[in-house]
């Protein structure tokens, strides 16, 4: 069976659930080798975190260049691993770092690239939802080693327990891949809520909040959800720009998306239309967002949300 590489997804030193999602897709194609790019001396600890998902082998490369020189250094090493292992495909999580790494690796290794796949089949056909989820496209890569980035939350992870073989690899990072240098890094302030793109549930507020996100946040916290915002809300300065969902913000596809006081302009829908279930609360019965709602409440979010929060909390108690 051919080997398929995935890039184990570590953020802030922690393995994310995207690793198991990537492994699940990759296992359809071949034997999964998870690449771990770790700081010097921490390879074993990083590798030890990979105990879920159909992973056969963990390939560990240690270098402080990954943190210090970012995408360039990672692409350099990943390209060398591709040359050594000759995999059938390489799957990477679709976030800013993952996509840039895929891009640079594609250039270096002379390979085609597909980003933002929501599914990958055994024959390495990738499914994408484009134009804000309005069109489904199936594509294949015709040159080099297919490099595909996969959207978080789009593949149901096989979380079986595994104890993969660990292989330590050693590669040098070329000086030409060290052109940008990190001087400081501060972890994101998240207030205990999950990351927007990987959350199972997202509760978003828009113009209808009038700048008061308390009810939205309370409902989000009752569900263990991430908080999103429409462009109208971030433009008004009501919520940080990093929480913007939509065409020029983040794309999310959670199990449940709750849109509160959001009219549903095409740009917003482009970022959330592929959510599995959509709930809408809006005072305006004509708001276009109702067209894509599985469950819509015509009403004031400040009346509906506290009741719903109470209901969810009561159920948990």
């Amino acid at each position: 069976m051919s080997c398929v590489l995935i890039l184990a997804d570590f953020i802030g030193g922690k393995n994310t659930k995207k690793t198991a999602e990537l492994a699940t897709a990759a296992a359809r194609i071949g034997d999964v080798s998870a690449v771990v790019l770790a700081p010097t001396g921490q390879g074993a600890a990083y590798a030890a975190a990979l105990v879920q998902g159909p992973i056969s082998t963990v390939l560990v490369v240690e270098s402080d260049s990954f943190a210090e020189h970012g995408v360039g250094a990672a692409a350099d090493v990943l390209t060398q691993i591709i040359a050594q292992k000759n995999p059938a495909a390489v799957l990477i999580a679709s976030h800013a770092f993952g996509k840039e790494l895929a891009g640079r690796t594609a250039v270096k290794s002379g390979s085609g690239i597909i980003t933002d796949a929501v599914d990958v089949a055994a024959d390495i056909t990738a499914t994408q939802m484009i134009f804000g989820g309005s069109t489904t496209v199936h594509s294949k890569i015709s040159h080099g080693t297919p490099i595909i980035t996969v959207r978080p939350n789009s593949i149901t992870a096989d979380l079986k327990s595994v104890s993969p073989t660990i292989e330590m690899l050693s590669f040098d990072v070329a000086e030409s891949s060290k052109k940008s240098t990190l001087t400081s890094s501060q972890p994101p302030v998240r207030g205990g809520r999950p990351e927007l793109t990987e959350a199972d549930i997202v509760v978003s507020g828009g113009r209808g909040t009038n700048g008061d996100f308390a009810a939205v946040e309370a409902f989000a916290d009752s569900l263990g959800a991430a908080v999103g915002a429409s462009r109208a809300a971030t433009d008004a300065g009501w919520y940080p720009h990093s929480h913007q969902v939509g065409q020029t913000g983040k794309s999310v596809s959670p199990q449940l998306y709750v849109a509160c006081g959001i009219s549903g302009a095409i740009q917003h829908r482009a970022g959330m239309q592929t959510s599995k279930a959509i709930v809408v609360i809006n005072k305006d019965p004509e708001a276009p967002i109702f067209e894509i709602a599985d469950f819509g409440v015509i009403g004031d979010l400040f009346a509906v949300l506290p009741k719903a929060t109470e209901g969810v909390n009561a159920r948990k108690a």
Partner: protein
Amino acid sequence: MKIAICIKQVPDSWAEKKMVNGLLDRTNVDAVLNDLDEYAVEEGLRIAEAHGGNEEGAANTVTVISMGPERATEAVRKALSMGANNAILISDPKLAGADALTTSKVLASVISKGEFDVVICGTESTDARMSVVPAMIAERLNCAQLTFASAVTVDPAAKKVVITRVTEAGVDEMFGQFPVVISVVEKINEPRYPSFKGIMAAKKKTIEVLDLSAVGISIENAWSVVVDAAPRPARAAGVKITDDGGGGDQLVTFLMEKKLI
């Protein structure tokens, strides 16, 4: 400093987009300068203005570089009317349907010949949304990649650029030496509206149109091929209720029925 801004003309993000023969139908929609590239143009102008300006005879020039059909001159003119000095448009029928690999190859080739110090891009185009071209350009030019910048500081004497970037991993500070490829996030600045004077001046500015032979590179077919594309069926209409005081409870019941909580 020689500053280059990479821009793209895209279908208006309000427009409905369709696929024709595996490619985005670009002919039947309004085309505009990619929203996110306006921040790049603005940032380039601000960098020039902070270090002696880009008026004729000043120390800096701001050049707009774009790849696209002849029609893309409209988007290029907009960037010129904001205050860029001149523009290069790479336009060739062979580039129709070019993927990110080809786009980055063409742009990198033009940038490399122009010996630019600072290259600025938007983070992504609102049509393809891949967000990979700036990183690919940096790779091809073998230069510093400073992407997703929310703040940029340039020191022309030291030939050094420092950026702040916000990513999944947190808030980072990074630097690189000229030449650098920067991509800027939305909200790094407030792009200026072209003034009447700017619009008039832009009409006289040079747009150098190059085809592939003038650029001096050959391109290959796209390395990813669309097998099929189909509009996604519209979501089936769901339940819609009016809140009469019990809307919150009904919502919770819906979530329970669907096993979402």
